[in-house]
């Protein structure tokens, strides 16, 4: 390298002159690696890359993991996988720290000092399995066994369902806050209603030239953020030329709204009204070029634009402009997002947004709404679906009534994630025996009798069908990239072992010795498919390739046009939002939102994510309350003043962030902090807005209406400096004008 040459020149040059002066380095020293070399010039060893699947959220991106000397060093997106094409978000990158977290459970433990004592005693796995088998065996009635799952890997969900079915127990109930906040359940129901399939649709951002996003923070946490970001990038400076126009409708200016060309602030729960008004204007004024609007006239017959504008506080003029913009576009698309689903009128609201796509006839068209091709169907398609909050409430009711004797919590943290007013923490006290399968002692684990820690996803097997999917059929594979770091055990293996221990019907239904053989059998159905990007002669060969590639997918794009059921001439419902709490006593709307870094709180254990600034407030390591400057002024508070936020269901304290991008009646609090357990980086940090949320649901889909609570604020007079990246003195200016 050039430096070496210059060093040699140096020797020649100095031989005569400088040696005499005693300044030349001695020649024998030349063998030493001089300190002028940056250490980055030295590259030790070769790395191995393993393909697998990210499980930090439900999107299911393909990843490749860099492994050196048996240690995972870095997670990157799988460049071949059609969903995320080599890209990965912050949470996906940080998965490494879940693997190597210092506070992970290292073995199976039993809580000895009573629940909540956090005194644990290690247990051999055999003992633990015997104990569990005995608990199941001694149930008076298999119906008294309940399983609550979180974001379950598809194969585990299937195994669990089979096991519970064979035992005669009710099927697993699943709930995770992330899915609730993005309105997964409501979206599935909307898809069923409007697209004729419960598959989550793909909104073709890349092909769209005007995107109206109603509360979908699709660049942060909503659905499949990496795939959507990729599409967004191409929409902006796309390969097709032109630059798409993005309008974001939501009460708080999210990072997605920051990337949008226009942010339309509105009152919570009125997104649907805006969509209705836009539709009415388009239909009434015969805007655009999508053909006749006559079939849609009936949809909007009851809509009064002025009323809608008043309710949402979006000026009519703005609505007109936007309607024009949307209707005139070549490829407009409207996205019903998560903040709609978090209202008691979520269903009608989302319906109103989806109707806009119908009005401009964008189903199955470029820049419109698609479904992913299912590819080979069968066992693989039987994926885990998030259950509605109502079914969780049913479970809580059963637990409270003493109808549950044994509760298994698999990959979920309901004590933290459910609104505390839903009463899960009280209900769990009524269950005689609780078994938890999480790899950390989290809030639910602290209330369990037995914890059988699962592997982290980097140590375990599985597969995932992404939903919403990519532009083609795809299934990603998951395989261990390192040997398990601790004496943990895959929950799937635990259930298989349990089945064989229980004998009888469970053992018949679950005959596999371990999860790998179960997977091999499941994956075999893809082997014969003609769509695949690779072929193999034998099932074993296919299984090897499947692991190497990180999954299976079709070679070419296969966008699927939805078969839209005829809506009939039924007018769209106009349902005003309902809020818990009296407007006089509780003047503000509470708007909890998933943190970009911590999502619903599962990222809070990872120091990288804790240190990652929130894109909008640049705060981290804490919880804050976002207030419009006007609201802050009227309350007499400023940045870093601690306020007490009180809802009819609870209260919390957190410092204020004066946030110019929020509707003045709205108080936004990020979800994710407020852990009492869950490792050293998460616990005793910030507060959990779910303590404030009313346990109410969207009447149609039964999903949690997390945005339907009113609160009031009280200044406490105390201060707490938030760890912000930004200098508050700089006041958000780019330059000093």
């Amino acid at each position, binding site marked *: 390298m050039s430096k070496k040459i210059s060093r040699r020149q140096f020797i020649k040059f100095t031989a005569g002159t400088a040696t005499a002066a005693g300044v030349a380095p001695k020649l024998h*020293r030349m063998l030493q690696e001089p*300190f002028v070399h940056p250490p980055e010039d030295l590259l030790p060893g070769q790395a191995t890359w393993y393909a697998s699947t990210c499980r930090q959220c439900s999107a299911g991106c393909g990843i490749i993991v860099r492994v050196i000397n048996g240690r995972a060093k870095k997670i990157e997106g799988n460049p071949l996988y059609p969903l995320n094409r080599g890209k990965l978000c912050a949470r996906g990158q940080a998965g490494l720290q879940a693997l190597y977290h210092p506070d992970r459970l290292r073995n199976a433990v039993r809580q000895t000092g009573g629940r909540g004592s956090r005194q644990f005693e290690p247990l051999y796995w055999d003992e633990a399995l015997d104990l569990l088998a005995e608990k199941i065996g001694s149930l008076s009635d298999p119906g008294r066994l309940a399983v609550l799952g979180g974001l379950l890997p598809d194969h585990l969900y299937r195994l669990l369902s089979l096991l519970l079915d064979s035992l005669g127990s009710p099927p697993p109930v699943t709930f995770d806050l992330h899915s609730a906040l993005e309105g997964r359940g409501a979206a599935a129901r909307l898809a069923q209603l409007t697209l004729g399939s419960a598959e989550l649709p793909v909104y073709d951002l890349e092909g769209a030239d005007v995107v109206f996003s109603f509360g979908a923070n699709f660049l942060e946490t909503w659905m499949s953020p990496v795939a959507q970001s990729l599409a967004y990038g191409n929409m902006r400076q796309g390969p097709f030329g032109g630059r798409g126009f993005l309008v974001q409708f939501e009460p708080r200016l999210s990072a997605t709204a920051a990337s949008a060309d226009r942010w339309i602030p509105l009152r919570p729960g009125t997104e649907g009204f805006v969509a209705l008004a836009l539709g009415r204007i388009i239909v009434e004024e015969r805007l655009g070029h999508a053909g006749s609007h006559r079939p849609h006239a009936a949809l909007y017959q009851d809509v009064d634009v002025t009323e809608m504008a008043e309710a949402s506080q979006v000026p009519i003029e703005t609505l007109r402009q936007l309607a024009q913009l949307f209707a005139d576009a070549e490829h407009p698309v409207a996205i019903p997002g998560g903040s709609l689903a978090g209202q008691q009128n979520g269903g009608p609201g989302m319906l109103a947004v989806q109707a806009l796509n119908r009005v401009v006839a964008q189903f199955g068209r470029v820049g419109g709404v698609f479904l992913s091709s299912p590819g080979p169907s069968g066992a693989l398609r039987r994926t885990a679906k998030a259950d509605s909050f109502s079914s969780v409430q049913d479970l809580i009711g059963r637990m409270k009534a003493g109808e549950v004797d044994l509760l298994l919590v698999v990959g979920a943290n309901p004590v933290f994630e459910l609104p505390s007013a839903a009463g899960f923490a009280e209900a769990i006290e009524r269950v005689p025996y609780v078994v938890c399968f999480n790899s950390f002692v989290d809030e639910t684990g602290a209330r369990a009798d037995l914890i059988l820690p699962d592997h982290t996803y980097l140590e375990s097997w599985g597969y995932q069908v992404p939903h919403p999917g990519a532009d083609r059929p795809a299934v990603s594979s998951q395989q261990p990239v390192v040997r398990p770091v601790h004496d943990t055990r895959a929950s799937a293996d635990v259930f298989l072992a349990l089945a064989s221990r229980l004998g009888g019907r469970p053992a018949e239904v679950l005959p596999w010795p371990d999860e790998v053989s179960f997977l091999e059998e499941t994956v075999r159905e893809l082997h014969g498919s003609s769509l695949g990007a690779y072929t193999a002669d034998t099932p074993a060969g296919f299984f090897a390739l499947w692991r190497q590639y990180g999954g299976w997918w079709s070679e070419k794009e296969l966008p699927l046009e939805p078969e839209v059921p005829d809506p009939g001439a039924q007018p769209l419902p106009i349902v005003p939002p309902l809020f818990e709490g009296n407007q006089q006593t509780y003047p503000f709307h509470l708007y909890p939102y998933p943190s970009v870094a911590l999502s619903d709180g599962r990222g809070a254990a990872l120091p990288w994510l804790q240190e990652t600034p929130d894109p909008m407030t640049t705060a981290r390591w804490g919880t804050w309350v976002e207030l419009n400057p006007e609201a802050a002024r009227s309350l007499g508070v400023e940045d870093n003043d601690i306020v007490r936020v009180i809802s009819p269901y609870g209260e919390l304290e957190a410092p204020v962030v004066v946030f110019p991008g929020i509707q003045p009646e709205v108080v936004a609090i990020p979800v994710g902090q407020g852990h009492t357990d869950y490792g050293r980086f998460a616990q005793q940090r910030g507060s959990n807005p779910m303590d404030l949320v009313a346990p109410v649901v969207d009447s149609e889909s039964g999903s949690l209406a997390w945005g339907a609570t009113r609160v009031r604020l009280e200044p406490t007079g105390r201060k707490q400096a938030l760890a912000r990246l930004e*200098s508050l*003195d*700089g*006041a958000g200016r780019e330059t*000093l004008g």
Partner: protein
Amino acid sequence: MPESAQPRPGSESERSELDGSLLLVERTDSEINQAVLQPMLRGGRNFWILVAGLGAVVAWGLYAWGYLVTWGIGTTGKNRPVYWTLFITTFVFWVGISHAGTMISAVLRLLKVDWRRPITRGAEAMTSFALMMAALYPLIHLGRVWKFYWMIPYPNGRFMWPNFQSPLMWDLVAISTYLIGSTLYLYLALIPDMAMARDHTGGWRFQLYRALALGWRGTEAEWHKLHRALGIFSVAIIPIFLSVHSIVSWDFAVTIQPRWHSTIFAPYFVVGAIYSGLAALACILVIVRRGMRLGEFLRAEHFNALGKLVMVAGMLWTYFWFAGFLVEWYGNEPVTRELIQEEIAGRLAPLFYLQMAANLIPIGLLAFRRVRSTPRLLLLAGLSVNVGMYTERLLIVVGSLQRNDIPFNWGTYRPTWVEISIVAMTFAGFALLYILFSRIVPYVPVWEIKEGRLRYSLRRIGRLLVPTAAEIE
């Protein structure tokens, strides 16, 4: 020696006010020796209490330094973007203080100003000790102090060489040079007094003075050579003294940090250094005079003259400050404007007004002879100047760094106990060194006093006619 005592020191006008001036003239050389030596030998209880107190502060500061080295620079209040704080501020302050010694002994020696005689040694000692304290800071503020020798250019197996383009390298060599130069200067002028002390003491002191006197006998040839050497020193050390603070100022001025990137910084810093150094010297003289009862050597005339110098330096400082400020204000560049706004009406305002008041009021006060020649008032004025100049450096170093071109990256600095302890350590360390020095080394340069007196006393020396004392060198 009554016959040698005819003319009186000082000009006619001033003499009338001088108390004790006659005393000195009537003293014999031997009495002068004793007057200087006796206070050195008195070690009262208060003295030892003072030494113990200062020693304790130094020890605490050393502990803080150890803590800093053990845990890292994070134990100070520095952050991004305020990478330099109290350490560099105090560094600049001490380097500034060190400028008075050279000013007094070299510049005034060259200008043949006679009132400098009794205070030269005190001033030179101040230079050396202040520089020693200053020289600690580049070490203290290093993130890896144990690697400081990597800045020294010597052939090594690491194949490393320092970057002579870095102002820190200039700092290193200039401060070493100044420290070496001023210490040698101090010592050279000390040799005859060491011989004097040798001749009048016993025990360990005798051994010490004997070693330091190097065998001085006071032969004509020795005096002659000493004079020549001191002459050369005086000439040579003045450019060094000018360069040192210029280089310190370039530590700041070479960056493109707004308010640092200024061409006036070098002379501005030099003048500021002289201002604070002379003021500090005045304070120290007042204190030492009282503490060591040297009233008959350090008299009102000296304070008066020193006070005038301080006043002139203060006026110059004001001029340079204004010249810099005006241009910055006029330029109206965004960050500079923001910083000036911060100073005038923002969060830095208390410091800014403290700086201005503490620097400007003494100038006005020192215009009165009464203030100049009353030790207590002079002390007050001198202290005020030093508070002002410290604040000035604080504003330059910390104040400017808190703002930069990108408002997103601004920052605020809060000092920690570690920094404050270490800063206190150097103040205590300086005082301690100075006190010990004054007990070991004749604080008043006896031979220079005698020389001065001789010059005044002899109209005809040998065969030579000497017209006026002031012209002799």
